[in-house]
């Protein structure tokens, strides 16, 4: 299978302006996302992973903006799009799964409403059709009783279920790219694996490109095809997943990997 | 810490501005007899409803009394009553609220049921009804206001005490054997007092409005005492021909209430006390 590049990010610079000066938070980030592949982005908190994601969907917080570089989605530079064109791309072309599913949903709006409004924003469908689509995608995510689920409110569901609903919503518009920003961090261990498996299934079925952002090296190793390591706004190393884990070349990557290994070995020694 | 707070407070222009107005009002309260050009209650029917002149800077009312003097003396009545009501209410509320919140149990349960019933009436209405039943007059006005207001603040203070009570340093004090009253005085009062002060300044404007409103209805301060609400009531019948009679007391109320509201709001923001 030949790989097909969906998105190319080139030399991305993002600055935050404070009262006195401009502080760079991304210094020339470049990577590309390919259809059906998972691109992992690792790094400690504050290294610019989330900022990169936000820049891709043009939802950077106030006072920070892209100052240089290009974000090309299928040869279209997203930086040249108007606000409303960009809005139509969000959700439809680039979907995003948020870190904390418990707070991402509006507590006073039903799951069904969340689902339907997303579908009807991007597709010309009736309420009824949207409802049927929603049920189909919830079933795909192996959620029990989808018809009942749609009538429920976010607080009635567990974090793992909400995360799967969020994935179902993301997938339902069959986007080219899904950005998953720490999709498993807020979940307990049993749910984590399930979510990763489901993401894996989806990229195979729909040939979606996934940008997986995590500080959990285990999740990255499990799912990613290619990995980039970020540190203070730079990608310090980029390599296929096996290469990176087996023969890391950058000192920061080594340190990152070792911090994990040494921890597990120490734990073993004390246990024995 | 206290110094930092003072610096922060002084940086707020709004606080300085409103504070200055409040200060001026207090000067009027204290030196009313010196500052007022005339006795506010001297009736001179021959000089009634006069236009402003050197002798009467704001003219005279329907009984020939000096309006400026009445406004100045009115400051005493309005501010004085409001402060008295608020101070007494706060003292009662602090005691009852702290006691109910700290002790808990049956006392607290009883207190909450009293709250349920008293707060089942709109506060303004209850004040109106009470004063109507007790009969109009300054003492009954004061009694009615305190009786209606205390529940509201006592409940807020009870809430504050409940949340402070759960703090670890209170627990530490208890574990180390500090007696109950000591804990309340040393650890709980200092925390809630600043919040109470903010409440005091945030709501005193409303109290002034209520008192002048009741006096306007003829239920509060009685004529011939110079009170702003009662003055507006007096000038009702002349307001087509002499609208200025009504303007001055209204402007006084508006100014002082705005000053207190601004002061309270700014103080709350500076101390970051949230009222719910």
């Amino acid at each position: 299978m030949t790989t097909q590049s969906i998105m190319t990010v080139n030399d991305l610079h993002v600055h935050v302006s404070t009262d006195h000066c401009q502080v760079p938070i991304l210094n020339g980030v470049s990577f590309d996302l390919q259809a059906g592949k998972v691109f992992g982005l690792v790094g400690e908190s504050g290294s610019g992973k989330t900022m990169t994601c936000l820049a891709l969907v043009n939802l950077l917080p106030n006072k920070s903006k892209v100052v240089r570089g290009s974000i090309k989605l299928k040869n279209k530079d997203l930086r040249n799009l108007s606000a409303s064109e960009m809005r139509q791309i969000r959700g439809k072309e680039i979907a995003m799964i948020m870190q904390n599913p418990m707070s991402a949903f509006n507590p006073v709006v039903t799951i069904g409403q969340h689902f339907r409004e997303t579908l009807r924003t991007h597709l010309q469908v009736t309420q009824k059709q949207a409802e049927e689509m929603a049920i189909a995608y919830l079933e795909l995510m192996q959620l029990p009783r989808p018809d009942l689920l749609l009538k429920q409110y976010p607080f009635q569901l567990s974090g793992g279920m909400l995360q799967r609903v969020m994935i179902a919503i993301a997938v339902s518009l069959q986007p080219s790219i899904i950005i998953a920003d720490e999709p498993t961090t807020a979940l307990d261990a049993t749910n984590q694996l399930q979510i990763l498996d489901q993401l894996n299934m989806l990229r195979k079925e729909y040939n979606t490109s996934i940008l997986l952002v995590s500080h959990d090296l285990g999740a990255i190793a499990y799912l990613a095809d290619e990995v980039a390591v970020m540190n203070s706004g730079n990608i310090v190393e980029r390599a296929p997943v096996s290469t990176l884990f087996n023969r890391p070349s950058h000192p920061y990557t080594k340190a990152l990997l070792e911090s994990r290994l040494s921890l597990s070995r120490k734990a073993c020694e004390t246990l024995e | 810490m206290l110094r930092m707070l003072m610096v922060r407070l002084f940086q707020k222009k709004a606080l300085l501005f409103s504070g200055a107005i409040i200060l001026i009002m207090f000067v009027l309260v204290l030196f009313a007899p010196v500052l007022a050009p005339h006795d506010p209650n001297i009736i001179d029917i021959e000089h009634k409803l006069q236009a402003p002149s050197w002798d009467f800077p704001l003219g005279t009312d329907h009984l020939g009394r000096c309006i400026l003097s009445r406004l100045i003396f009115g400051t005493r009545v309005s501010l004085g009553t409001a402060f008295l009501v608020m101070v007494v209410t706060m003292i009662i509320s602090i005691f009852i609220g702290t006691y109910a919140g700290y002790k808990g149990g049956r006392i607290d349960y009883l207190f909450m049921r009293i709250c349920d019933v008293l707060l089942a009436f709109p506060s303004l209405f209850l004040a109106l009804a009470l004063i109507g039943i007790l009969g109009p007059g300054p003492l009954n006005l004061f009694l009615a206001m305190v009786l209606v207001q205390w529940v509201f603040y006592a409940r807020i203070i009870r809430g504050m005490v409940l949340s402070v009570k759960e703090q670890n340093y209170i627990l530490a004090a208890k574990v180390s054997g500090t007696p109950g009253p000591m804990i309340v005085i040393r650890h709980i009062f200092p925390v809630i007092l600043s919040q109470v002060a903010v409440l005091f300044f945030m709501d005193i404007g409303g109290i002034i409005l209520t008192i002048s409103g009741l006096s306007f209805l003829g239920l509060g301060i009685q004529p011939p005492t110079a009170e702003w609400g009662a003055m507006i009531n007096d000038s009702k019948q002349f307001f087509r021909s002499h609208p200025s009679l009504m303007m001055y007391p209204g402007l006084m109320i508006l100014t002082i209430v705005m000053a207190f509201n601004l002061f309270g709001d700014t103080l709350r923001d500076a101390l970051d006390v949230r009222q719910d």
Partner: protein
Amino acid sequence: MIWFIVKRLSMLIPILFGISLLTFLLIRLAPGDPAEAYLRLSHIPPTNQAIQEMNVKLGLDKPLIVQYVDWLGKVVRLDFGISYVSKQPVWDELMLYFPATLQLTITAVILTVCISVPIGIFSALYKGGMFDHLSRILSFVGASMPTFWLGFLFMYFFSIKLDLLPVVGRGSLAHLVLPSLTLAFAYISTYTRLLRTSMLENLHQPFVFYARVRGLQERVIIGRHVLKMALLPVVTAFGMTIGNMLTGAFIVESIFAWPGLGRFFVSALSHRDYPVVQSCILLMGVIFVVCNLLVDIAYGLLDPRIRWKGER
């Protein structure tokens, strides 16, 4: 939802009981003797013997508890007694004046909602802009304005100077404009500020970001997601406001000679017409409690988290 309403209704009973008890006892605080007041209002000289007879006739010679039970029994059947002044059943009189007060209050509520909601939303959306500053100054002044004074200002400018609207009285729709606006003014200010703050708090919640991520139109995000959350504290505050608004209507009525409950109540107070005073107090308490119940139910409809709390 039904369970939720039933629960709220059952909480109502002890409160209503408390209200009736307080109302009954409040009247006993009054200086002077009801029998004497009755005689005076009937132009009968209050001799000792006449007072004695009156006490028996009005049932005032019985123990307090018996009086209370008698009174409560009648009240439940909407028998509020006979007015000392007019000698008419109090209930009939109440129903004569109350609609005017209700009309005034409801119009003021509608004005408050229709004006403060859009202003609050726009101030929050364009925070720091010209409109926001203007509305903040206006609402600040509005909250500090004495209602009775504002009423006269309105009357002076719109009725006397500009001759646009009738000065006093009740009748046409034009008569309603100034009184309801006067009554609503302070509440418009309060609610504009409240909604603005509440909108600002919700505009940066994660669910707003998630809605943007899904490509929803700004119109839908503000109108459906943010507004629905921002209205919750406003609805809560509304329950407290409605009673004070009814009382505020009393003051407005006295300015604009509006023939409502307020004037009836104040004149009953000055005449010491005890059955009327008592009934008015009870009526206000019940209305206020019922309004709060309705607000609670509205809150339950808006916020499912409250509704489901008791059911699990």
